[in-house]
């Protein structure tokens, strides 16, 4: 408590005091702290909820993309013994390593873990899965007579192949870059990172295709979204509100409904082909293939994402005063010059917002490409889903997911810089 208060609320040192005698500054800081704590207490439950249900899964994915503990956990003694082996010698490792491998495999077979380590190593070198499976079946019948190397060699000659051992040694750490290297069509070879053989390259191509198709969809959305947004922004409010329903209704309709509509329309025996045949524009035996290819993906996704282009464009265009165009025209500009030199530059922020939004959404799309894309119109996300549910190569799925996530976050950051996430509007 401050003592010696003066009549005007100042003490001897010149500090302003609050009613309870504390210095005003301290009192204010306390009030502010309380306010901050109250705000944080309101936010905390949701923040914890999101961290557990959403952030932790994303972190888990990041972790899985580099995690490799299955190898050192299943083959601990072998990994240890291999540390002394020189992989550049061109010779298979000595008897000590085979003794360790025998021990490890006995334990692994009992725990049925040898096939899992086999599939892990198979991602790096084809053939290791079957090698470990085969060896696992016979390992119990082996005798520890000091000549295990020869016995292993008898099961399969790969066990005396130094290359196989080099692969095991290279991927014996707790963490690995193997999945990321795989997802950019490279691998860790004997002399460091090397490109995969031509016929095994797939992911760079898929990433490129995802980017190209997303760009195509964004451009298509911009080209057909701009005129509509322009019309909506310049019409009287009453009319534009009515027309806006035509934009918002697809926005509110289930994605599956819109995708099934396109599936029905674009089929060989679908409404569009039927109409074209009826009009005599195409022959009955030359119906257009518009589905299960890139055309299908582009048409359906442009339709699905179009509202996300029109809405930001519209909200920016609404703020452009119509008097600017009139002023330009009265100063002698033609309609086109007035639009291009005066109106268009002011609508650029809307173009940026809409384009980034559509692109972010397009690049990670899964459902629509899966249903209407066939084989040539699928995205990287379809590959991720495939690795999770069919090939069970979760590490690779995680690595591909992380790369996609980084691209999206970069775009998100850009979006935040240009427009700000606080300005996202819905409906």
């Amino acid at each position, binding site marked *: 408590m401050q003592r010696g208060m003066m009549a005007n609320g100042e003490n001897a040192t010149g500090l302003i005091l609050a009613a309870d005698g504390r210095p005003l500054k301290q009192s204010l800081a306390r009030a502010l702290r309380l306010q901050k704590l109250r705000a944080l207490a309101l936010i905390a439950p949701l923040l914890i909820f999101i961290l557990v249900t959403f952030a932790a899964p994303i972190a888990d994915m990041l972790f899985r993309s580099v995690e490799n503990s299955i190898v050192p956990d299943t083959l601990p003694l072998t990994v240890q013994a291999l540390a002394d082996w020189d992989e550049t010698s061109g010779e298979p490792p000595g008897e000590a390593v085979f003794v360790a491998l025998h021990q490890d495999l006995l334990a692994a077979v009992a725990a049925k873990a040898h096939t899992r380590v086999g599939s892990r190593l198979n991602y790096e070198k084809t053939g290791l899965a079957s090698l470990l499976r085969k060896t696992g079946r016979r390992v119990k019948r082996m005798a520890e007579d000091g000549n295990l190397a020869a016995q292993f060699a008898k099961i399969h000659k790969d066990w005396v192949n130094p290359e196989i051992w080099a692969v095991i040694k290279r991927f014996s750490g707790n963490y690995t870059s193997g999945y990321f290297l795989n997802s950019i069509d490279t691998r860790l070879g004997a002399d460091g990172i090397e490109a995969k053989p031509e016929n095994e390259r797939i992911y760079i191509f898929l990433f490129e295709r995802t980017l190209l198709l997303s760009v195509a969809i964004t451009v298509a959305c911009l080209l057909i979204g701009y*005129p509509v947004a322009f019309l909506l922004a310049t019409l009287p409010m009453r009319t534009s509100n009515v027309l806006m329903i*035509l934009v918002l209704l697809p926005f509110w309709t289930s994605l599956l409904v819109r995708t099934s509509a396109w599936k029905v329309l674009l089929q060989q025996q679908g409404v569009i082909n039927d109409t074209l045949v009826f009009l005599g524009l195409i022959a009955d035996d030359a119906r257009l293939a518009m589905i299960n290819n890139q055309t299908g993906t582009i048409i359906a996704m442009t339709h699905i994402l179009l509202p996300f282009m029109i809405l930001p464009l519209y909200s920016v265009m609404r703020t452009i005063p119509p008097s600017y165009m009139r002023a330009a025209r009265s100063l002698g500009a033609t309609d086109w010059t007035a639009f291009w030199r005066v109106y268009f530059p002011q609508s650029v922020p809307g173009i940026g917002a809409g384009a980034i939004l559509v692109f972010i959404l397009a690049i990670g799309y899964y459902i629509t490409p899966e249903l209407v894309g066939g084989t040539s119109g699928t995205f990287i996300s379809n590959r991720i889903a495939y690795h999770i549910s069919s090939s069970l190569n979760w590490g690779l799925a995680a690595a591909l997911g992380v790369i996609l996530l980084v691209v999206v976050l970069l775009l998100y950051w850009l979006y935040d810089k240009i427009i700000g996430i606080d300005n996202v509007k819905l409906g």
Partner: protein
Amino acid sequence: MAALPPYASTGQKLWYWGFRLICALIFFFLIFPLLIIIPLSFNSLPYFTFTPEMLAFEAGAYSLVNYNDFFTNSDWQNALYNSVRIAPVATLLSVSLGTLAAIGLSQSHVPFRGVIMAVLISPMIVPLIISAAGMYFFYSRIGLQGTYVGVVLAHAALGIPFVIITVTATLVGFDRSLTRASANLGANPVRTFFKVQAPLILPGVISGGLFAFITSFDEVVVVLFVGSAGQKTLPWQMFTGLREQISPTILAVATILVVVSVGLLTTVELLRRRSERLRGMSPQ
């Protein structure tokens, strides 16, 4: 593009009507796929196109056979039941937590506001396939994969950004002197919240809730991975139907969902107008 002035040249007239024609075609492109499935869903034959009889408007060409299948087929009824069981609970979770947090975020002094906001919005930004993959990995670690609770939690997380965005938008225009006036008149904070703040932000909360509901109700990617056969929802059933054996029942379901979304759109629009009128933001 205001009305055409009487002195417009031929070129200007041509452009004016040409532009309108282009826009009409684009509107047609937007709305046509949704409208075309409605008559197709009444096809009495299992085709996805108009039969000659339908085009001739013969009564026998139209029937409710697809709707009948939807309401009697146990696969579809199970899927509907699961959807109805998951979406409201997920919505309730996102709305209650999201509204509290949005009120917290709208206070004047919030430390790390930008970071917190970015984290809370992130489920909307991260591609669904990545959320689905991460949740699949993490939920199988903690035993939530393939459970009802897991799907509800995942859907609640996906709906939260929408609640945050709509409720903060309502709070931006909120007049703080109203709460001060209420406190001044002797109301405690809880009473102030329910009597003054809540009625004003309610439209925002409800439309946020509708967004969260539709997010969960339409969601298919996450439920495909996080759920198991016991949580098969309506979109999941449609997805399987479209991928494997495309049956015309899907058209009936799609028509019903279009009607539902018309209802939702109308509600959200009415709420938005009410909220603006309440806060005196727009004269319309």
